[in-house]
C-alpha cells in the first residue's frame, strides 16, 4: 500500500524487509498516517496507539507497555496524568460514533498488568566518546538523558531539587500519581549509566561557563518554576500563595497552612491540583475561579467531574480585581466577565463587565495562573525576562553547544509534550556532536488480515475509570490514589472498542467489478464512487470527487478517514479484491553507531 500508488502507480522510496514488511519514507505515506491514524498523530510523542491497544486486547500487557515506552518513556505515569490529546481526536468520538476510546486508561492497564519482572528491551549503541550535561530532571530532561544514554553518550543530569522528576514529583499530587510508579520509571530511564546529581542549582552551585567547558554539550531543561502573578492589589497579603509554591510544599510533605474557605484562581491542571489538594489538607469550602467557562477549560472532562464530585465549586466567568484583607486575606473582589472569540493560542478572549464587582469571602487564596522559566545566569541571548532563548526547531541557543528544551524553552506545556521535546532535543544534540543521525521515523507497512473485531463492539459504551467512593474515603489519607485502574476484564472490554485505525483497507481497481455490494454494507459513507482522487504535490490523497453519474465513475474507493474498519466490505466482496494492510508510523534506531 501507498496512497501514491492508488493514484499514480509511482513507486515510493521504500525499504523492503523479510515477511512482506516495507518501511517507507515517502511523504505521501506519512500524510496518509497523519490523516488516517488521528490518535497517533495527536500524540506529541507519536505513540502507536492502535498497536498497544490491540496488544492489551490480546492481554499482552507487557508488549503493550513496551510499545508505549519505546517512544513516551513513562507509560505508568502518563496512564495516570496524561492530558490525552489523542482521545479528543479518536475517531470513535466523532459525531454519531459514540465516545472516544479510553486510550489513557488502557495505557495504565498495560502498566498495571505488565508484571513486576518485565524486562524492558532496548537497543543500545557503543559510546561515541561525547559528554552531555542535562540541567533539570523533569520529563524533558529525563527523556533527553535517556535517549542520549542509549546511543552511548556519557550523560550527567543536574537537578536543583532533592529528588528527580521535576513537576511530576513536585507539581502533581500523589493522589493522582503514586511515587512508587514514578520512581520505577525514572530508575528505568537512568539505568544506562546516567549520572544524576541532585541538589545542584546551576548559577549558584556551579556556573554555566564551567559546564560548557567540562561537557561537549549542555541542555537546559529546567522547567518553569516562576509563578505568574495576578498583578492586583493585596496579592502579598498573608494567606495568599502561588499555586506552584503550594503544590511544591504539599508534595514535599511540608504541609502548607490552609484555611477553611479557599479560593483557587486559575483554570489549568495545576489549579485543579491545588483545589483538590486543599480539600485533602482540611479546607471545608473550595472554589475554583475561572475567567471563561467550563467549556473552555483545557483539563479533561473526567477531571472536572471528579473535582466537582469531591465538592469543589467551579465559579466561571469571573476575574479577580483585588484581594481584600487587613493583615491577612479576607476575600477577593471579582468582576463578572463576558466571553468573546477564541484567540489564536486557543484561549478565550474575555471582557470584564464594568460595575459587576462582588466579593467572595476567603481565608486562603491560591493563585495558579501559570508559570514561567526562571532565568539561569548564562552566556547567550535571552528574552526580556532574562531567560535563555533557543530555536524551537533545533533547540540551539546562540551559544555553540548550549541547547534548551521543554517547558524552559516554550513555557508551560503538558508532560507528553515535554517528553517529546526532550527526545527531539537529544537527537539534535547527537547529530550536532557526531554528524550522524541515530533515529528516524518511517511508515511500516505490512500485509494483514481481517481481525476478529465484531461490528457489535462498536456499540460497547465507554468503560469509565473506577474511582474510590464514597468521596469521603478519598480524602484520608490525603495521598490515597483516587483512580483505581481498570480490572483486566475492563481493560479488555475497552480495548475491544478501538477501531484499529492502523489497518488500511484498499480496493484493487483492476479486479473490482463495480458491483457496489461494499457500498451497500458500509455502515457510513466510507466507500465512494469517485470520478477523481485529489492529491497534493507529494501524492497524498486530500479528497475525492464523487459522482452519481455512472459514466464518470473511475473507481470505487475507500475513504480511510471515514472508514471505521468494520471489515464488512471485505466479507461481502465477491471478487476478494479488498485488501487489508497494517500501516504504522514507527521510530527506528538507524544503526548502533549512527547513520551518516
Amino acid at each position, binding site marked *: 500500500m501507498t496512497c501514491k500508488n492508488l493514484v499514480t502507480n509511482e513507486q515510493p522510496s521504500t525499504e523492503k524487509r523479510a515477511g512482506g514488511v516495507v518501511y517507507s519514507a515517502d511523504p505521501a505515506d506519512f500524510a496518509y498516517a497523519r490523516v488516517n491514524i488521528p490518535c497517533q498523530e495527536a500524540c506529541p510523542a507519536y505513540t502507536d496507539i492502535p498497536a498497544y491497544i490491540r496488544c492489551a486486547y490480546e492481554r499482552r500487557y507487557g508488549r503493550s507497555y513496551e510499545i508505549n515506552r519505546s517512544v513516551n518513556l513513562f507509560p505508568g505515569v502518563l496512564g495516570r496524568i496524561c492530558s490525552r490529546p489523542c482521545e479528543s481526536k479518536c475517531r470513535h468520538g466523532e*459525531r*454519531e460514533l459514540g465516545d472516544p476510546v479510553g486510550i489513557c486508561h488502557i495505557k495504565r492497564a498495560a502498566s498495571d498488568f505488565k508484571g513486576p519482572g518485565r524486562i524492558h528491551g532496548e537497543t543500545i549503541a557503543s559510546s561515541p566518546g561525547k559528554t552531555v550535561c542535562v540541567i533539570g530532571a523533569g520529563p524533558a530532561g529525563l527523556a533527553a538523558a535517556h535517549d542520549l544514554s542509549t546511543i552511548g553518550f556519557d550523560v550527567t543530569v543536574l537537578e536543583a531539587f532533592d529528588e528527580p522528576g521535576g513537576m511530576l514529583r513536585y507539581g502533581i499530587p500523589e493522589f493522582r500519581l503514586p511515587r512508587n510508579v514514578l520512581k520505577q520509571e525514572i530508575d528505568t530511564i537512568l539505568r544506562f549509566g546516567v549520572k544524576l546529581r541532585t541538589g545542584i542549582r546551576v548559577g549558584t552551585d556551579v556556573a554555566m561557563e564551567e559546564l560548557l567547558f567540562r561537557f561537549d554539550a549542555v541542555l537546559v531543561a529546567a522547567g518553569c518554576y516562576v509563578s505568574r502573578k495576578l498583578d492586583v492589589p493585596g496579592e502579598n497579603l498573608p494567606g495568599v500563595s502561588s499555586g506552584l509554591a503550594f503544590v511544591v510544599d504539599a508534595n514535599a510533605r511540608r504541609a502548607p497552612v490552609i484555611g477553611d474557605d479557599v479560593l483557587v484562581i486559575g483554570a489549568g491542571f495545576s489549579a485543579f491540583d491545588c483545589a483538590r489538594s486543599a480539600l485533602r489538607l482540611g479546607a471545608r469550602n473550595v472554589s475554583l475561579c475561572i475567567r471563561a*467557562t*467550563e*467549556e473552555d477549560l483545557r483539563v479533561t472532562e473526567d477531571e472536572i*467531574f471528579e473535582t*466537582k*464530585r*469531591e*465538592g469543589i465549586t467551579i465559579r*466561571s*466567568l469571573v476575574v479577580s480585581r483585588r484581594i481584600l484583607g487587613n493583615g491577612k486575606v479576607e476575600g477577593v473582589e471579582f468582576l*463578572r466577565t*463576558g*466571553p468573546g472569540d477564541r484567540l489564536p493560542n486557543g484561549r478565550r478572549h474575555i471582557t470584564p*463587565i464594568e*460595575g*459587576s*464587582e*462582588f466579593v467572595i469571602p476567603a481565608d486562603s487564596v491560591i493563585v495558579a495562573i501559570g508559570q514561567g522559566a526562571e532565568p539561569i545566569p548564562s552566556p547567550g541571548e535571552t528574552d526580556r525576562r532574562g531567560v535563555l532563548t533557543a530555536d524551537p526547531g533545533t533547540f540551539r541557543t546562540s551559544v555553540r553547544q548550549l541547547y534548551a528544551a521543554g517547558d524552559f524553552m516554550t513555557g508551560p506545556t503538558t508532560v507528553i509534550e515535554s517528553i517529546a521535546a526532550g527526545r527531539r532535543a537529544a537527537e539534535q544534540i547527537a547529530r550536532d556532536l557526531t554528524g550522524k543521525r541515530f533515529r528516524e521515523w518511517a511508515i511500516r507497512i505490512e500485509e494483514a488480515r481481517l481481525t476478529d473485531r465484531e461490528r457489535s463492539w462498536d456499540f460497547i459504551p465507554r468503560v469509565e475509570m473506577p474511582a474510590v*467512593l*464514597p*468521596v*469521603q474515603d478519598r480524602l484520608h489519607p490525603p495521598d490515597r490514589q483516587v483512580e483505581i485502574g481498570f480490572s483486566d476484564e475492563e481493560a479488555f472490554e475497552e480495548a475491544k472498542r478501538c477501531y484499529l485505525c492502523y489497518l488500511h483497507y484498499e480496493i484493487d481497481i483492476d479486479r473490482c467489478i463495480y458491483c457496489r455490494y461494499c457500498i451497500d454494507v458500509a455502515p457510513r459513507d466510507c466507500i465512494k464512487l469517485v470520478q477523481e482522487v485529489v492529491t497534493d504535490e507529494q501524492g497524498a490523497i486530500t479528497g475525492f470527487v464523487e459522482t452519481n453519474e455512472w459514466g464518470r465513475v473511475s473507481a470505487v474507493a475507500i475513504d480511510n478517514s471515514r472508514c471505521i474498519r468494520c471489515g464488512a466490505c471485505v466479507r461481502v466482496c465477491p471478487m476478494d479484491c479488498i485488501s487489508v494492510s497494517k500501516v504504522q508510523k514507527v521510530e527506528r534506531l538507524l544503526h548502533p553507531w549512527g547513520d551518516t
Partner: protein
Amino acid sequence: MNPEHCVIIGNGPAANEAALTLRGESRDLRITVIGQEPVRHYKAYLLPEYVSGKLAEDDLYVNPPADHRERDIKLRLGQKVETVSFDTREIILDHKEVVRFDSLIVAVGGIPRIPERLQVFSDLFLALKTLADARIWKQKLKDAETILMVGGDLTSLSFTKALLAMGKRVIFMINEDSFWPLRFDDEIRSQVTERLTAKGVEVLNRRTIKGLAGISENEVEIETDAEKLSVNAVGAFFGLVPNVKFLARSGLHIDRGILVDDYLRTRFAGVYAAGDCAQVYHPELRDYWVSIGYKNAWNLGKIAALNLIGGKIRAQAVAQSIFRVGGIAVNTSWWTEF
C-alpha cells in the same frame, strides 16, 4: 421565493409561546417546532397531581391536538436534536436528517440535576420532570408504600403533598444539596423541617448519603452516615440544569446555559435562546441569571420571538418573588448560582 424558515428547538412554555407569537406577528413565516418528547405541550407543574390520580392525562395538555396544524406551525415530536451547525445553519437530528433554518430559537428547558457525588447512583433515582417520568411513578406507586425524597425543590414539595394524599409514607432527607440553588441556611432548614413534619412527613436532617443499592424491583437500600434505610422508591429532586450539552462545541457561548444578551440574542445572527436554557447577565444582580418556572419561560419565549422579527425588548429578571408552597417560601423567579 421560499419563506423564511424559523425553527424552534423545544416544546415547553418558552418554545410554544415563541411559536404562537411568531405566527401572530407573521403569516408568511415558516415555523417548525422540534420537541424531543413524543407528546404535545403539557403543563409539567401539574404532574404531581396527575401521578396522584387527581388529574387525567388530558388535563395536562395546554392546547387541543389540532392547534398547531390550524395555526400552520409544523410540530415535530419525538425528534432529538443531535447538534446544530451554525456555519451552515443546519440542525442535525439523531436519525441523521438535516433541517435547514434561517432563524432559530433554542428553548430546550432544563433537565433534572443530580449532584456529581450522587451520579453513580443515578439509575436508582426517579425524577418527575416529564410525562414519561410521571407514568413511571404511577406504575411504581401501585406497589410502593414508602418513598424517600432526596434533595428538595418546588416539585418535590407538591409531589410530597400528592404522595401523602395517596396515603404513602414519605421520608424527606434534607442536606446541603436541598433546595438548591437556594442558600440552605439553618433558618430555612428548620422552617422546612417544621412544615414537613406537621404534614406527617418523616424528616431526616443533615444526612449524607454514602451508598444506594437496589435490593429488588421494589426495594432500595440507602446507607447514610447515620443509618440504613429500606424504601420502595427514591425520588431525586435537586432542581434543573439547562439542557444544553448537545450544543457543546457548536460555537455558541455556553456557560451553564446558553449565554445571551439582554435581547436574548446569542452570538450568531438570528439565533436566540429563551426559557430555562438561557443565561443572561443582569446589571442589578451583578450576576448571570437563568430563569426557572413556567411563567418566566413563557415570557422569555415571547420576548425572543418578538426580537427575532425586529423587536427591541429587553429580558429583565423579575424582582425577587417568593412562591409559597404548602406554607414553605421558595424563591423561583430567578437564581444566580448553580
